[in-house]
């Protein structure tokens, strides 16, 4: 039954592709989106059913994949990811009905988008190496093509596409090597068989495979230092695509690390997981710092994706570390926290990216310094972004709060275990979590405050209006989920526990929810997000009522006072750059910002300044220190190599003569 539905999901997605390719222009978007939504809905049903029943959906055929076989087996763990993708996919596709920007309406994009969604849906179901890599690479190439959709209008898109292509191929190469090594050493391509036999493999094989998998999946997840493509590609992709990439695709990187590290290899030594935690910590700090200092809305969101992936990896690493030291319940707790963060991240990042695209469409820019005052002009999309921003900043009563709390709890409870690695790793983990938490609050205060509040900074922003209904419905659904999951996390936590329980060797004695509340088994006290929400609304209502009662005169609209400025204009407003300036200064050594000051003088005297413009640009340190030098080395090598074949037939023949002499000398 579920197997048939899984096949139907794939076929529906392919039908969407076909529709995008051949349907007449008038129906193209509607038809391909509708079919994609149907595919997502089917995927949702399969995933939910598998999560509920625990029976894997298995499809196996040798008709596909020459010289190998095509095989899907969706277990509970994978099903969670399918469900996430399905939800994000549905919302993104609804959004797309109203979205007309960035060339997403073209025939190419319309046919590739359903294929991308389908591959996203199927990757977690793949159950042999060839199938997995096929779907994985299909996902990579389709997403690459979608990133490039708008190449004709903006050159940044090309650059972004190139970075993405290269980084994803680096990752894919590592992944291919790692998985193939594992498969050949275990004598089977099937994940199930590998999982059984991998325990008997030599340690170096296991470790090599794991490290390669971490590199491969890490690059897809956008973990530092493999993240460089992400802050370029995610912003340049059309809205629904960037939402899918940030909210669904990066998840699969986390999926892969867990699948390989805990599933296929059934866990490993502490250093594996310290590596994962290290990557996570680095990603979280680096990502949150850059997102705090970015001034482009979508770039900010992209860096924040790196940040959140870092948190997920912290959880995953902690889980592996606990499992290695025999703390299975804690391991499950940490994994649940990580997976819950995956779910919630999908929800809030999806709504943020979609509503950021709404902003883009309405105000013509995503540069925060070109926006402002949009909350009043976009009465629905504005609040959607606001909700997403509060959720990602882990503020109650929204969902990010719950997963961060669980993550903190898992680290807190791991501390007394007496293991040195844990004792060192956990406080650092908490510190990182806390720092990124604070920075995220900073970031989204900036994003909301500069982008949506205050005065519009440009005429385009001034004229912005609410976007079409499908767009805010798509983004709004996710925003509603932010609130629902934040108030009633018991709706998702049991499913996430089930999903995490599918990873071998982890189990939890007792449930993680008690009524509406989140509680750890055997630990007093719990988190009552519902209660917090009620308290906030109740007290807030009372306060507002009280304010109304003591002062019933209507609110007077005034010119802002601003310590006595006569006229408030947008030019006086704080910009995103200035908002981030204190932080940039604090972390100057890490960010090493470049400042350019352009001063133009009055014609009459150069002692009087006409205008001064300060540009602050912050490069990615890894890009500058690692990737660009590597690229330069490659180019230099290419230039050297180019000189060897100089076009002379004599030289070419001399190569042959030398080769012949070598053959004669060595072989005769």
């Amino acid at each position, binding site marked *: 039954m579920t197997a048939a539905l899984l096949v139907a999901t794939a076929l529906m997605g392919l039908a969407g592709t076909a529709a995008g390719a051949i349907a007449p222009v008038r129906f193209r978007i509607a038809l391909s989106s509708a079919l994609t939504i149907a595919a997502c809905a089917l995927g949702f049903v399969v995933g939910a059913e598998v999560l509920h029943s625990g029976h894997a959906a298995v499809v196996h055929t040798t008709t596909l994949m020459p010289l190998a076989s095509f095989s899907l087996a969706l277990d509970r763990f994978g099903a969670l990811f399918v469900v996430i993708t399905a939800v994000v996919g549905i919302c993104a596709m609804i959004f797309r009905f109203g979205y007309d920007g960035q060339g997403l309406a073209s025939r190419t994009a319309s046919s590739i988008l359903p294929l991308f969604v389908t591959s996203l849906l199927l990757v977690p179901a793949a159950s042999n190496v060839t199938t997995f890599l096929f779907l994985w690479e299909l996902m990579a190439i389709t997403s690459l093509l979608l990133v490039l959709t708008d190449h004709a209008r903006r050159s940044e898109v090309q650059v972004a596409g190139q970075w993405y292509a290269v980084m994803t191929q680096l990752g894919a190469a590592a992944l291919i090597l790692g998985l193939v090594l594992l498969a050949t050493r275990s004598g089977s391509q099937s994940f199930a068989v590998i999982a059984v036999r991998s325990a008997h493999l030599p340690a170096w094989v296991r470790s090599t495979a794991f490290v390669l998998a971490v590199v491969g999946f890490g690059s897809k997840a956008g973990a530092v230092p493999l993240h460089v493509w992400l802050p370029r590609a995610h912003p340049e992709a059309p809205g629904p695509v960037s939402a899918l990439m940030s909210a669904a695709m990066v998840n699969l990187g986390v999926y892969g690390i867990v699948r390989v590290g805990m599933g296929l290899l059934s866990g490993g030594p502490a250093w594996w997981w310290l590596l994962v935690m290290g990557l996570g910590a680095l990603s979280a700090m680096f990502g949150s710092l850059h997102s705090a200092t970015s001034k482009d809305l979508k770039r900010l969101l992209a860096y924040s994706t790196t940040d959140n992936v870092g948190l997920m990896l912290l959880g995953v690493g902690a889980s592996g570390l606990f499992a290695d030291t025999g703390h299975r319940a804690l391991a499950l707790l940490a994994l649940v926290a990580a997976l819950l963060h995956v779910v919630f991240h999908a929800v809030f990042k999806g709504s943020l990216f979609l509503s950021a695209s709404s902003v883009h469409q309405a105000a013509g820019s995503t540069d925060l310094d070109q926006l402002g005052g949009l909350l009043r002009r976009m009465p629905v999309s504005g609040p959607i972004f606001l909700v997403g921003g509060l959720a990602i900043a882990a503020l109650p009563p929204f969902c990010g709060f719950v997963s961060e709390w669980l993550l903190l709890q898992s680290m807190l409870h791991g501390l007394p275990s007496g293991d040195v690695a844990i004792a060192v790793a956990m406080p650092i983990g908490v510190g990182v979590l806390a720092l990124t938490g604070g920075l995220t609050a900073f970031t989204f205060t900036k994003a909301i405050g500069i982008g949506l509040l205050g005065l519009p900074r440009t005429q385009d922003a001034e004229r912005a209006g609410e976007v079409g209904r499908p767009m805010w419905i798509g983004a709004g659904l996710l925003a509603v989920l932010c609130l629902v999951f934040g108030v009633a996390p018991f709706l998702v936590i049991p499913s996430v526990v089930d999903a995490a329980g599918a990873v071998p060797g982890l189990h939890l004695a007792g449930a993680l929810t008690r009524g509406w509340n989140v509680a750890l088994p055997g630990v007093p006290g719990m988190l009552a997000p519902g209660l917090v929400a009620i308290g906030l609304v109740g007290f807030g209502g009372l306060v507002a009522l009280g304010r109304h009662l003591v002062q019933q005169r209507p609110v007077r609209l005034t010119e802002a006072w601003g310590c006595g400025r006569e006229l408030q204009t947008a030019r006086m407003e704080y910009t995103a750059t200035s908002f981030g300036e204190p932080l940039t200064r604090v972390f100057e050594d890490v960010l090493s910002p470049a400042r350019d000051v352009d001063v133009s003088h009055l014609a009459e005297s150069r002692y009087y300044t006409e205008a001064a413009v300060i540009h602050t640009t912050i490069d990615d340190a890894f890009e500058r220190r690692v990737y660009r030098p590597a690229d330069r080395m490659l180019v230099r090598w290419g230039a050297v190599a*180019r000189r060897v*074949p*100089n*076009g*002379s*037939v*004599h030289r070419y*023949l*001399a190569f*042959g*003569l030398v080769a*012949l*002499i070598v053959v*004669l*000398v060595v072989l*005769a």
Partner: protein
Amino acid sequence: MSGSSYFSVLTLAAGTVLVCAVAILWLASIRAVISMVAVQGASLGLVAVVLGVHLHDAGLLAAAAVVVVVKAVVIPVLLGRASGSDSGSRESRPLVNVPASLVASAALIVLAFVTGRGVAHFVGTRAGALVPIGIATMLIGFFVLVARRRPTFQIVGLLMVDNGIALTAFLCTAGFPFLIELGVSFDVLLGVVVLMVLSQRLRLEFGDVDLDELQELHD
């Protein structure tokens, strides 16, 4: 033919092939080189004839006839005609000058004798002992290809490689089945013809060229 006279004739013929090769390396005038090619082809034919007579192999005799016709007559004539207009021209500035070329050819001959010993030993016949001569001719031909600039010299170098290999083949295996031998000779002939046509075309379109001026195509 008695055993010893058979062998001395064979040695003489094979030796002539090699000597022609060295001579080609020495000479600069294209006309002289073409006549050396003819001599070399004839010697090669002689090797085949001697072997054919010795082994009573009619196929080998027929092959010998083909070789003589193609390599000693047709190709030199064609070469001569093709380079008629510049038959007086010389390889004036070889990439490797004549003394160095001769030293190199000595080294190549030594190399051939060292590396060919195994094959010669394996063949086991007295003719087989001459296999290194064939390999040496081939190597020198290859060297001509590398070291000489004129188009005609490259054609000649190619022919020498071919003659060396053919000599080796005769000495090792008493030749291939006749049909294949025919095909091989025909291919060689065609190849040379194509090269000559090309060199003519080059001359027509771009005037008198040295091959190392052809460096327009590179990365």
